[in-house]
């Protein structure tokens, strides 16, 4: 069975400002980031759709200790965001001073953009990642 929405295609679309997902024709739920099957029901009858780039912050952390090769990025904020259409995605929150991150972030409305992670010796080249800004 062919993979309907690969990482490469998802990533490429994100760099053009489009967030793609998979709509399940069995249960109607949307899965993103993509998988072979629907995250909710395991269904395989999926259609690639554009997902609205709006959501709310569910949780966050301000990172001070980075992995090898990424020390120049700290401090940075990672957030999990619940998109308006249901799925959760992970990315970085930009546009605020990381030191000011606190519990008030939870529930804030954000919109989805992107940034490139250039990869390191363990990862195969450029990877687009979601970044979030306050709506």
């Amino acid at each position, binding site marked *: 069975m062919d993979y309907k929405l690969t990482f490469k295609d998802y990533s490429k679309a994100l760099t053009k400002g489009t967030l793609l997902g998979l709509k399940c024709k069995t249960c109607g739920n949307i899965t993103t980031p993509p998988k072979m099957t629907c995250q909710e029901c395991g269904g395989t009858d999926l259609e690639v759709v554009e997902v609205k780039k709006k959501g709310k912050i569910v949780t966050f*952390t301000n*990172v001070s200790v980075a992995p090898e090769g990424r020390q120049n990025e700290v401090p940075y904020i990672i957030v999990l965001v619940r998109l308006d259409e249901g799925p959760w995605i992970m990315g970085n929150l930009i546009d605020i001073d990381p030191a000011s991150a606190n*519990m008030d972030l939870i529930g804030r409305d954000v919109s989805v953009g992107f940034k490139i992670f250039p990869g390191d010796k363990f990862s195969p080249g450029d990877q687009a990642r979601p970044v979030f800004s306050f709506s």
Partner: protein
Amino acid sequence: MRKVAIVGTGHTPFTFATEKTSIELFSEAAMDAINEAGLKSKDMQALYLGNCLGDFSEGQAMMQSYAANDIGAFHIPATRFEGACASSSLAVRDAFIWVASGFYDVVLVGGVERAASMGTSLATRTFAMFTDSHYEYPAGLTFPAMFAMLAHLYSHKYGVPLERLKEQMAQVSVQSHAYGMSNPKAQFHKEITKEDVLNGFMVTSPLQLLDCCPFSDGAAALVLVSEEKAKELTDKPVFITGIGQASSGRLSAQKDDLPRLRAREESAKQAYDLAGIKPSDVDLCELHDCFSIASLIAAESLGFFEFGKAGEAWEKGETKIGGKIPINVSGGLKAKGHPIGATGASQVSEIYHQLRGEAGERQVEGAKIGLTDTLGGDGVICTLIMEKGW
């Protein structure tokens, strides 16, 4: 299905960076386990070895084969288990299944890691490989960052104000360090206070340095045998009576289940059902306290406390010896150390000695049933239940 007994254990000290190789560490633990069982290396019919990062820590993959040869268990089938921090628990579970099935009578199982030897930067990078490399690592996700996000989510979801939760989390580390004092194999022999935790360096908010377990080097090994074989070797066998294992998708795919890890609940149910017991029957538990918040999350999903209430239990001393359910009296990952590939076998080793009444100052008197909980990455979970067999 046959009954399966543990009849020998070996456990190196868990330490900061060591000069010993992984093979050397594992062989020391393995020979101790084999000797304690009253067996010889040539009696081992198979080796199941947990190891995650040998490839990165010393350029050594496939060490299971050399490890078997190193101890003189020539040409036996040797298999490596990689399940992040749960690697050797997965190895124990599979060893159990192979002995229970009747295929083998005697299996050597354990794990080894040299995480401390990698240094913080490379260790942080390689531990981050236990997250989704394409969809989540690009955001800079680290292992502590994952649990840091679960801590904030826990506070929000259960309505425990963050400052209050932080104090409860600090108490987890304080307790573990207190028990680590009486474990000669522990990496830390140092009591800490709540203030020490709350004044520590912020690693990734809200986790401070002493909310986090250390990077560690070390090995642990066990000999598992059939009930019949156990009768020849000991009059104090410890039986493995429950096993569970489950998996998960990437963190974001776990959605509304968080901060609970659904895989843990699936795995624990399998183990409780197989053993025919319930959480209140457990006399002591070694659970996966890679971070202070991880202890609260684990203890709740294992059925010991209500959701959102585990922190209060730690504060009231319900997790101490003499309390409702003694947890991590070995010092846990926090004080004993966490050489990831060895951790599961180390947890089982603690339960084994506790059930045999050999735990010294930290003995839980009269313990008959013990449980281990080991978490790998954001979703490989293994639960093992052991019972006193005499």
